[in-house]
C-alpha cells in the first residue's frame, strides 16, 4: 500500500525550485552516475557564497535536496560547504534510507563545489 512517498517540503522544492539554473562564471561541483546527475554552481564574494544554483537529473528527493542545499548555503561562509552534513537534509526531506547513497553523492558535490570556490575566488 502507498503512503505518500514525498513530504510537503519535497513537493514544494520539486514543484517550485528557487535555485534551478546556473551561475554564469561560477565555480562548479559535479556528480554523475547511472541514476543521477547534479551540477552545482556558485560564486563567492568576501568568503561568502553569493549566488548558488543547481541542475539535477534524478529522483524527486535528489532534486529537492539540491534545492535545499542551495537554500542552506546562499549567504553563508564558503567554509561551511566543507562541513555539509546530510543528516539534516535526510530528516527535513524524509528521504527513505534506500536513497541515502544519493544524498551522500550530493554531499560530495557540495564539497567539490567548496573546493572549486576556494580554488577560484
Amino acid at each position: 500500500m502507498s503512503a505518500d512517498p514525498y513530504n510537503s517540503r519535497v513537493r514544494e522544492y520539486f514543484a517550485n525550485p528557487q535555485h534551478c539554473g546556473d551561475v554564469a562564471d561560477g565555480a562548479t561541483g559535479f556528480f554523475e552516475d547511472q541514476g543521477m546527475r547534479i551540477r552545482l554552481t556558485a560564486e563567492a564574494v568576501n568568503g561568502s557564497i553569493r549566488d548558488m544554483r543547481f541542475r539535477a537529473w534524478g529522483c524527486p528527493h535528489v532534486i529537492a535536496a539540491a534545492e535545499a542545499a542551495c537554500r542552506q548555503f546562499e549567504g553563508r561562509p564558503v567554509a561551511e560547504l566543507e562541513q555539509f552534513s546530510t543528516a539534516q537534509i535526510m530528516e527535513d526531506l524524509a528521504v527513505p534510507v534506500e536513497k541515502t547513497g544519493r544524498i551522500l553523492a550530493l554531499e560530495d558535490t557540495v564539497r567539490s563545489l567548496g573546493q572549486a570556490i576556494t580554488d577560484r575566488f
Partner: protein
Amino acid sequence: MTADSDFLYLDYAATTPLDPQVAQLMQEVHTSAFANAGSTHRAGRRSAAVVGRAAVQLGALLQADPDCFLWTSGATESNNLAIAGAAKIRAHRGKHLVTMRTEHKAVVDVFIALEKQGFEISWLTPDANGHVSSEDFEAALREDTQLASIMHINNETGVVQDIAALGAICREHDVLFHVDGAQSVGKVHMDLDTLPVDLLSLTAHKFYGPSGIGALYIADGVHIEPLMFGGGQQRRLRPGSLPVDLIAGLGAAAEVAGNRIDKDLEKFTTLREALWRGIQDVGGLQINGSPDSGYPGILNVSVDDVEGESLLLALEPLCVAAGSACNSQSQEPSYVLRALGRSDFEAQSAVRFSLGRPTTRADIDIAAATYRNAVRKLRDMAPERVA
C-alpha cells in the same frame, strides 16, 4: 479532471470504478438476496438463483457454459488455482511447463513457486513488439509439457497475444492451455465456444465490476487440484461462503460490458491516437508494445533523458502508472519492458496511460499538455551529461 476530484485518472488498467448500474443492482442484492446461497431455505434458494443468473450472464459474454465457472477472489487467485492446480494434478505425466517472461506477477510468481517444487519452466521471450510467435511457442513444447500459460492482453503494454493460434498448438500437443484474461475479459470479444482455451482467469474490477471477485473458467473435462479446503461449495474446488452480491455484480458487469465492447474500443482507438499525437513534439518518444496494433485502451511510452520517478511526480495530478500497477511501489525498472529489449533507463521513464469509459477528449488534451510540460520541465532542470 471531473469537477469533484483533484486528480485525472488514467489508470483504468489497474482498476476501474464500479459501473453505476452494477452498483445499484448490488445494493438491491444486499437486501433481497443476502442469505447463504448454500442454504436450502427460501432465502438461500433466492441467493442461489442470483448466483445462477450471474453465471449465465458471464457465460453469455464469453460464449461459455455457465457451469464451467468457479468464483474466486480475483485473477490472482484464479491464476494460482489454474496453474498450480493443473500442474500438480498432471505432475505424474510430466513436469515441464511453458510461459512467457512478460506475464503478470500473479502468473510469474506461481511458476517460480512451482519451479522450487521440482517443475521445469520454459520462459519464452517475446519479440521487440511483445509478441510470442507460434514457432517459438511450439518449439518450446516437449513430450513432458503439461501446461502452457500465456496472457491475452498485457497489462503494461496492451500487447495482444494470438490466443487462438497458441491454443490450437496446445491442443495438437495435448498440453493444457491457461490464459490470464484479467485485461481482456469484458474489453475485447472472446468466444470460448471456439477458442481452444482450457482455463481462463478473470477479475471483475478490471471491467467496471466489483473488487474482490473473479472467476476461473474450467473447460469441460479439465481437472485441477484445489488450493483451499473446507466445505462442499463449488465442487470442493473453491470452498467458502459465496459472496452473492459480488457475484451478482460480476454478472451484471459482464452483461454491460458485452453490450459496449465495440463502442468502447472505437472510442479508445480515437483517444489513444489523439494522446499519441498530442505528446509527439517533446521528441525522443518510444511506444512500448505494438505501435499499430495492441489493445487501444493502453498507451505505454518511454521518453529519452527523463528520470521516471520525477516524471511521475511532475505528472501529478495525472494518475498514471509507471510499470505494473500491481508493483508500483518497487523502484525496479519493469521486467516486462526489459523483456521487450528496453534499457533500464528506457523502462524507468515509461508511463502507462490507460483509458476508461469515463475518459473524455478533454481529459486526453489535459493529459497530453501535462505530459509535455513535465518532460520539458525536467529536461530543463537537468545538467548536461559529462561522462
